[in-house]
């Protein structure tokens, strides 16, 4: 895979850049001839960009050409921007499953091979799939299920029963057995004397009639099945080692070592499930998936370096595809607001003919997604609350982790005095501490006495210093004003 992917990757990175360059050329051209209608332009560009792209893309683009024709014919140029945006947003929405899975070919193949092997031999088996959220686990499994259905039809095997359960939707963990039983035994017999699990176990330990079909069980978010004694999870995997079992079990969860940690007994029985790990997406993979999604569109919606920035940032943070998509979507929204804000009288001339998400949009979207609201909030807090945070940061600078409200108040008063600010009373002080506690900046311990409550700081000290440093220049002037006003007041009193 790496070799193939490598060559593909390089193409993928290059093509949008080329496209962009060309689009710029085109836009330069079009500025000379202002009256050129927009649809012509876009078609022109596509034609140009088609020149040196691989055959596969050409095919797609020719499709798109048709699509653009039909699209642009029925729409005025006014609403075209909006419709483009909408199309881009739709293409990037998480709910839209991509038609082909890229960057997960290897894992996909392994899962499929496993299921195929089991079906070939009419043998039960178990598989555990793990990986961080947003790495395409459920998506790949869905595709595998579809593929298995097609394949078994082709191979003239009896159709496979499939049961996909999202374990979060189970009320009781043991409900999964009754769901399995419903499929194994669609005709409900009078079996109130035994639990579904017992019934299944007895079914699988006897020789059944030859017509029995294989069953594919997919348990998504499997860690919801973990109970105190791990009984349910254990029993579920044990179903696959009964002599006449027909289950192919695929468990999906985040934890990498779920099978090792919770199923030590299976290991001793030498029937540990096979484990396939879905690694977090790398920067190149994210980029490729994004491009794949945008490929459907007949125009360039993102500057390639903007996309790359997004991919880099997300890959460095978590490698979560959902996050990358949501960042791109919010970048589009920022662009949309930009366009909506700017138009008006001069909308004909200088507005960019084709709205493209540039670097600045992407950076805005990224900072919106990744920046914590703490800094902004601290900067806009009222003065006294800022002083409280300051004193808390001062108090917990060393090894100390918490202090009582009384101690914090002492520090607060010191700061107030050094700044010549009249301090608030203890009741108000406690109120302000409660406000900060509500916001998750401070944390109270549960204690009875008001003054004896222990307080600890929840936000990072560096955040506080950063936030307040930026303010300090402003603060200096304001505190000066404050001082002078104080002086005036005292003079007035005298």
């Amino acid at each position, binding site marked *: 895979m790496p070799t193939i992917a490598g060559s593909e990757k390089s193409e993928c990175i290059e093509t949008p850049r080329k496209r962009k360059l060309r689009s710029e050329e085109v836009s330069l051209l079009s500025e000379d001839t202002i009256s050129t209608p927009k649809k012509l332009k876009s078609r022109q560009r596509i034609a140009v960009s088609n020149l040196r792209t691989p055959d596969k893309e050409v095919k797609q683009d020719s499709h798109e050409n048709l699509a653009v024709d039909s699209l642009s014919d029925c729409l005025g140029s006014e609403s075209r921007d909006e419709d483009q945006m909408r199309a881009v947003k739709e293409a990037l929405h998480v709910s839209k499953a991509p038609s082909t899975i890229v960057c997960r070919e290897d894992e996909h193949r392994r899962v499929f091979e496993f299921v195929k092997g089991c079906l070939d031999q009419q043998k039960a088996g178990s598989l555990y799939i793990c990986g961080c959220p947003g790495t395409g686990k459920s998506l790949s499994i869905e595709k595998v299920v579809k593929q298995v259905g097609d394949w078994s039809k082709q191979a003239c095997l009896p159709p496979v029963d499939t049961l996909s359960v999202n374990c979060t*939707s189970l009320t009781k963990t043991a409900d999964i057995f009754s769901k399995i039983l419903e499929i194994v035994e669609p005709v409900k017999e009078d079996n109130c004397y035994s639990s579904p699990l017992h019934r299944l176990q007895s079914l699988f330990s006897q020789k059944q009639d030859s017509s029995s079909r294989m069953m594919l069980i997919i348990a998504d978010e499997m860690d919801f099945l973990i109970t105190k004694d791990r009984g349910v999870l254990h029993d579920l995997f044990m179903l696959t080692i009964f002599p006449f079992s027909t289950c192919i079990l695929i468990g999906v969860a985040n934890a990498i070592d779920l099978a090792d940690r919770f199923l030590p007994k299976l290991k001793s029985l030498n029937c540990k499930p096979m484990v396939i790990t879905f690694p977090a997406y790398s920067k190149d993979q994210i980029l490729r998936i994004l491009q794949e999604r945008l490929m459907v569109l007949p125009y360039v919606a993102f500057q390639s370096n903007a996309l790359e920035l997004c991919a880099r940032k997300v890959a460095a943070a978590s490698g979560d595809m959902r996050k990358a998509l949501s960042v791109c979507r919010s970048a589009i929204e920022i662009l949309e607001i930009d366009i909506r804000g700017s138009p008006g009288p001069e909308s004909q001339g200088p507005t960019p003919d084709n709205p493209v998400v540039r670097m600045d949009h992407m950076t805005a979207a990224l900072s919106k997604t990744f920046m914590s609201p703490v800094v902004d909030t601290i900067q806009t807090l009222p003065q006294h609350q800022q002083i409280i945070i300051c004193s808390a940061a001062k108090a917990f600078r060393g090894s100390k982790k918490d202090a009582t409200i009384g101690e914090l108040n002492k520090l607060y008063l010191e700061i107030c005095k050094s700044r010549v600010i009249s301090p608030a009373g203890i009741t108000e002080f406690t109120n302000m501490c409660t406000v900060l506690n509500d916001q998750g900046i401070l944390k109270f311990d549960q204690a009875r006495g008001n003054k004896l409550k222990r307080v600890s700081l929840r936000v990072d000290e560096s955040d506080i210093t950063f936030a307040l440093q930026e303010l300090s220049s402003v603060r200096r002037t304001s505190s000066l004003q404050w001082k002078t006003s104080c002086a005036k007041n005292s003079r007035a009193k005298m």
Partner: protein
Amino acid sequence: MGNENPAEKALNLIRGRLCDPTFVFRPLSASSDSNYSKLKFIVSTSVTEGCNNSILLLGPRGSGKAAVLDLVVGDLMEEYPDSVTLISLNGLLHSEDNCAFKEIARQLCMEHHLLFSKMASFDENSQFIIAMLRECGLAHKTIIFVLDEFDMFAQGKQRLLYSLLDAMQSVTSQAVVVGISSRLDADQLLEKRVRSRFSHRKILFLPPSREEIDSLLEHLLSLPADSSFPSGYVSQFNEKIKNITSDTRFKDMLKTFLNANSTVNSLLKFIFRAVSSMNLESGLLSLENFKTALSSMQRQPKLEAVRDCSILELYLLVCMRRLEVKEQSSYNFISVMKEYKTIHDSFQTSDFYAQNVCLRAFEHLREREVICYAENRGQSQAGEYRSMKLLISASELHQGMRSHACCPVSLHFPSFYFCQLTSLATLFRTSLQFCYAVRFLHLSVTSMSRWREYVNLRLTCSISDYKQRSSYNLQDLQVGNFIYNTQPHLIKSPPDLRITPYAKNCDSQQRHLNAHINSPHPDQISYVCVLAPRSLLSSPTLQPHLVACLTNAPR
């Protein structure tokens, strides 16, 4: 009631406005940069384009998160009357999964005129919800889930959040999940699979800016011109409001108030109080109204308790505070009485009370919870012998004493050395009451350099008429020969002020210093106060010396 007084009517109108969040937040949401338009943009795109979304609204309590959301939802309901459904949950009520699903199912049934069964199980409810989501998605109806107190949902297995946000991932549903929380780290509380499904959109509610507050005040307080009020009254009222809001005193007051808590809600409370104390006869608001509102909102009950104490009780409190400063960790009534006697001896006050009177005062203090027993054990002991502790801080005691109507001056002095010296300085500067002749004050200084650096000698002199007061900062004071190069007017003004070295043991490590005041009229002369930073005063070498000095104050 047609013949209502216009003042009363105006009062009712303004109060009604203050209690109506839509009225308050409407002007704040006008600009395109406001949270209202941001939120409306996101929600309306999912209504029109049918895509799912999730948003978190973050901000302190009372910053108008729910109010703005209500505005947005209300407007959308008007715009798209049949395609918006609102489901609202509260984390305080529905944080439990089963209960939350039931509530969602119930509200969905209400909305679509279906029969809701109370007996439905968790499974049935969740299946019903998924089915309803699909149906609504097909019918292009948007469901808006509002989760108030969002952080409460992020407990345990977060099944509700998972299933809601997971439903957002499918094409068939058309819904928006709006979380409201005052916890800034609300999205960090989510489990990672839930967080991954959350769209990471956050709208931060920050306190309003100064301009916004100004326009809000005008919006709230001015009467409408086209109303049933007499026209003269309206113009008079609005004129008055304009006067008040442009007054610098009002601005200062507003600033002190907003410095403590700047959310919109607290501002509304403040205005409400001010408006409620409006004079109905004149029918106009005045600056006084706002002043009383401010003082009633910034109450300090403990300070008031000290202010209302009798003089004997004050003596007892000061004694206890002195004992605490002497680092006597536990003390009881008997030791407090001993301290009381010392003070009395050193100052020769005329008001010395017998022990039983003091005990009554002591009990009284305990009933008011200004002091209490240090521990619950030892209830068999008589009250005098049980160890006590103060429930008020030093600064509260001081402020209370300062604002006390007839606190004897002698009481202030014994409490000087424990108070923070910066507050001492303000004490001297502000109150004439303290012009009490303090003859000398010894100060031992550990080293020359520290003296130079730290000691900040402040002379506060009150001359015979007790009116001309001035304070000087003798930073360039030299200890060795006590020559000070001060401003010329200082040397001129108090001719009878001389500072001499107390002891001449010129050990560079330890110097004793005496600020001595010579005066022909001892009662006219003020005092010299040597101020040092607290670190110096609390140094172990200094403390006993000072205490001794204070107790041996000359008659």
